[in-house]
């Protein structure tokens, strides 16, 4: 009897340990784990990363030829955290941003935007772990990193958040696809070509599908969306992102907004390192069933 009771206790303890070890990782569609340094839009760099933790920023890093390096210099690590919004002027958003009242909506797109807000953004595709194209890709927690590939004449941006996506920016002078091309397959990240204008990387993109919201909050877009993005690094710790939104089906004229993004020196748990950790939106996603 004693042996049986002990065996039961061992089995119970073992089961408890097993259950604890198999507990789901703390991840949901858009929220970072609790101990992670905050990267919510509108927040300035917090302890452990960015200029606030390290005093004045170092100068902009450059490659041997003098061109700006948008990534970590050789021998160092780090990545870019989440950015602010291209609408409104709070936090890290740029002071020249339009407020929502200044966005040149078409009547239908304003009404749809209002409806999305009124319903608490319950139908945001990102809550179903679909990729976030446009400026939204830089608003997603868990950061992003530029990987320059001169031998392939392209820059790859990898994203640590959402469904762990990546995006190519081609620097080989290829033209953008024509939107009236019947063979064009619209995509979440569109098709991007870039060029350097001094210290600024200027990227033109088009060919987007309509399966995502291109900004948090649900500003609508259509398949006519054309983005002109400008990436610059005024100092080591700051990425400046500006984007001109040209979508004549959703807005009456092009409009521009942007935000800054802080350089991140730490890992997700605040330890030194600055490496993007493994995260998949789909893993343990529990939001969507509660949004219906």
């Amino acid at each position, binding site marked *: 009897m004693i042996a049986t009771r002990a065996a039961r206790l061992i089995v119970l303890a073992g089961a408890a340990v097993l259950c604890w070890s198999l507990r789901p990782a703390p991840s949901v569609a858009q929220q970072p784990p609790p101990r992670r340094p905050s990267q919510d839009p509108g927040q300035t760099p917090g302890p452990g990363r960015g200029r606030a933790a390290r005093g004045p920023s170092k100068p902009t890093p450059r490659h041997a030829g003098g061109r700006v390096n948008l990534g970590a210099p050789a021998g160092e690590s780090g990545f870019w955290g989440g950015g602010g919004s291209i609408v409104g002027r709070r936090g890290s958003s740029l002071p020249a941003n339009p407020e929502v009242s200044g966005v040149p909506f*078409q*009547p*239908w*797109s*304003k*009404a*749809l935007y209002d*409806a*999305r807000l009124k*319903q608490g953004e*319950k*139908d945001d*595709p990102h809550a179903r772990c679909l990729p976030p194209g446009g400026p939204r890709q830089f608003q997603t927690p868990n950061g992003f990193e530029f990987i320059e590939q001169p031998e392939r004449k392209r820059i790859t941006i990898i994203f640590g958040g959402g469904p762990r996506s990546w995006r190519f920016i081609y620097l080989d002078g290829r033209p953008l696809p024509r939107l009236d091309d019947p063979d064009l397959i*619209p995509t979440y990240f569109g098709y991007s070509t870039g060029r350097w204008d001094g210290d600024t990387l200027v990227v033109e993109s088009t060919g987007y*599908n*309509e*399966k*995502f*919201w291109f900004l948090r909050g*649900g500003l*609508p*877009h*259509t*398949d*006519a969306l054309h983005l002109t993005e400008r990436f610059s690094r005024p100092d080591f710790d700051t990425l400046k992102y500006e984007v001109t939104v040209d979508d*004549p*089906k*959703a807005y009456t004229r092009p409009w521009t907004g942007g935000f800054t993004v802080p350089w991140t020196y730490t890992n997700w748990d605040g330890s030194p390192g600055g490496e993007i950790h493994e995260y998949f939106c789909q893993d343990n996603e529990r939001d969507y069933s509660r949004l219906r």
Partner: protein
Amino acid sequence: MRPTRGRRFDVMLAIVLGACAVVARSQEGHPLVGTWHGTWGPDAAQRHDVTIVLEFDGKAITGMLNPGPDSIRFDQVTLDADKWSVHFEATPKGTNAKPIVIDATIHDVTNRRRSLVGTWTQGSVKGDFKVTRDD
């Protein structure tokens, strides 16, 4: 087995609808754009299948009713975004055909599986109408 005329029509309709589905790839953009399926009829016993395909070029909403050999292009589609109400007018082929007028409201407009619910009027016949947008 030799296909019947009805079966051939079904196959042809499926091909046309398949082609339309490729064109109608929108989901989160203009809330009317896409392919919608449902029925209309004067009562629960008399239902007629309806397929609607709509597009938006930035200014006007255009589209067709029941794509296939007997498709009907809409003469007019207007959206009142304040109320999400939609008015359709279409003229069927044939000298004795009566014009079709549909007045509907978009239900659950933020949902990718939103619906158009309203009335279908054709001459003296009036019925309820409901179509749901394809995902």
